[in-house]
């Protein structure tokens, strides 16, 4: 009897969490795109313009690393940019989410973690309707295989895991250190430059390379590029690498969030 009540309770909690997530995501998206004609597709504008810019500046120089094809450079830059954009947008939005809803948390009993998660979820929706169809198209053209299209989900999943983990970590830290956004901007910039987005990984000196492999986004970008651009069947090793990086970061972020959560309410 007691067990069934307990089960029921956790089921109710899951349901409540899901409902909260849903209204918060809808709220975020509605506020973000209220009254704009292109709506959610604005989020594609940034990576497209950046890709154009990089191609104009670096395209000619670096195309030799991409089989002497500027088109290949364009595609490589685009895949890298959508990943880093997703990461930086969702984590910096998650960062302020707990403190930003502090007034609410002081009045209503809510699961705190729903706020950073809802920020990542809003970006997942945006990505799924914006950049993801383009990636699917690119994959179909390059590989002509539906296996590759399906495999796209794995680096994307890894990206979600990494972003959620970092989102938990920074949103918790921001409760304690309100000057964190300045530092975090720097961190995002370091991650951005250290991911081989607009330059080929081959130009990095041997001594520096091991440091770059510490970047949690590198395996994700590599795996995504291999699936979309190479035309070869998905490389499982790369997929596992990306997923592993995601799982490690998520467990780290969640552990910190969970351990510090009890102190949040005194500081909000």
């Amino acid at each position, binding site marked *: 009897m007691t067990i069934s009540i307990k089960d029921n309770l956790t089921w109710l909690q899951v349901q409540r969490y899901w409902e909260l997530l*849903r209204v918060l995501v809808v709220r975020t998206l509605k506020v973000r795109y*209220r009254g704009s004609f292109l709506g959610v597709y604005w989020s594609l504008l940034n990576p497209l313009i950046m890709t154009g810019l990089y191609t104009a500046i670096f395209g000619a120089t670096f195309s030799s690393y991409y089989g002497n094809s500027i088109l290949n450079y364009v595609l490589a830059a685009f895949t890298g940019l959508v990943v880093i954009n997703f990461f930086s947008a969702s984590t910096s939005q998650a960062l302020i989410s707990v403190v930003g809803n502090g007034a*609410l948390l002081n*009045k209503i009993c809510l699961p705190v973690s729903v706020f950073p998660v809802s920020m990542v979820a809003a970006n997942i929706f945006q990505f799924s309707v914006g950049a993801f169809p383009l990636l699917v198209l690119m994959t179909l053209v390059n590989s002509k295989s539906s296996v590759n299209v399906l495999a796209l989900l794995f680096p994307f999943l890894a990206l979600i895991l990494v972003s959620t983990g970092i989102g938990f970590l920074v949103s918790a830290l921001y409760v304690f*250190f309100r000057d964190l956004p300045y530092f975090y901007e720097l961190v995002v910039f370091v991650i951005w430059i250290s991911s081989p987005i607009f330059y080929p990984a081959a130009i990095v000196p041997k001594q520096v390379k091991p440091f770059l492999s510490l970047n949690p986004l590198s395996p994700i970008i590599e795996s995504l590029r291999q699936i979309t651009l190479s035309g070869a069947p998905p490389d499982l090793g790369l997929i596992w690498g990306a997923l592993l990086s995601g799982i490690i970061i998520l467990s780290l972020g969640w552990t910190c969030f969970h351990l510090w959560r009890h102190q949040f*309410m005194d500081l909000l």
Partner: protein
Amino acid sequence: MEVIRLDQVALWRRTQEEFSYDLKKTMLSILEGKYRQPTKKLVLNNVDLLVDKGEKVGIIGANGSGKSTLLKIISGILQPTSGTVRVRGHVAPLIELGAGFDAEISVMDNILLYGVLLGFSRAEMKERAQSIFEFAELEDYALVPVKGLSSGMVARLGFAIATDVQPDILILDEVLSVGDESFKNKCKQRMDKFWDDNATVLVVSHDLEFVKQSCHRAIWMNKGKIIFSGNAAQTVDYYLNGL
């Protein structure tokens, strides 16, 4: 039947004034060896409380005596440092109307958002939307963003959403009726309905006359402790004499 039971509840909270929110400063102070653990303050001191179903309990005391903190413990917003809290039923807070609103989205979306935040399901809120609009007299404003409403309308909306539902335990922290005279009357009627129904009500108020008249029982808190608990009129008298 008891619905709320607090046993030896104590709560230590960090004092915000002494805390440095600065990463740079904190790192420097660690490097200089000057870092110290944040100081904590005892906000609730061994509080025991039993509330039966249907009771209306007023909580009185000076500012900073722990009244609102006690309500937060009961709503589950704060976890006690020691002791146990047991609450049976759905707790609905009615604190500072409109805190959960987003000014950018429409009134309808806000009803769903606020309702779900308060612990009701989306489907439930959709069904209730009509009666909420009617009560708040905002039928013509369903698709208007909340920032297009006057502050009185926002307060009306907040009150309508929070009280449209029938919670088992209603928590009031200095909530007064809002809006113009005719709406104030409506609010009063609705509050009276809560009072007549078998909902349990906990109210923090500085309006001693109100506590005397409307509550069965009153609790006098001072410095995190319950000094006296008993018949409302008696408690208010003690409180006034004790000042």
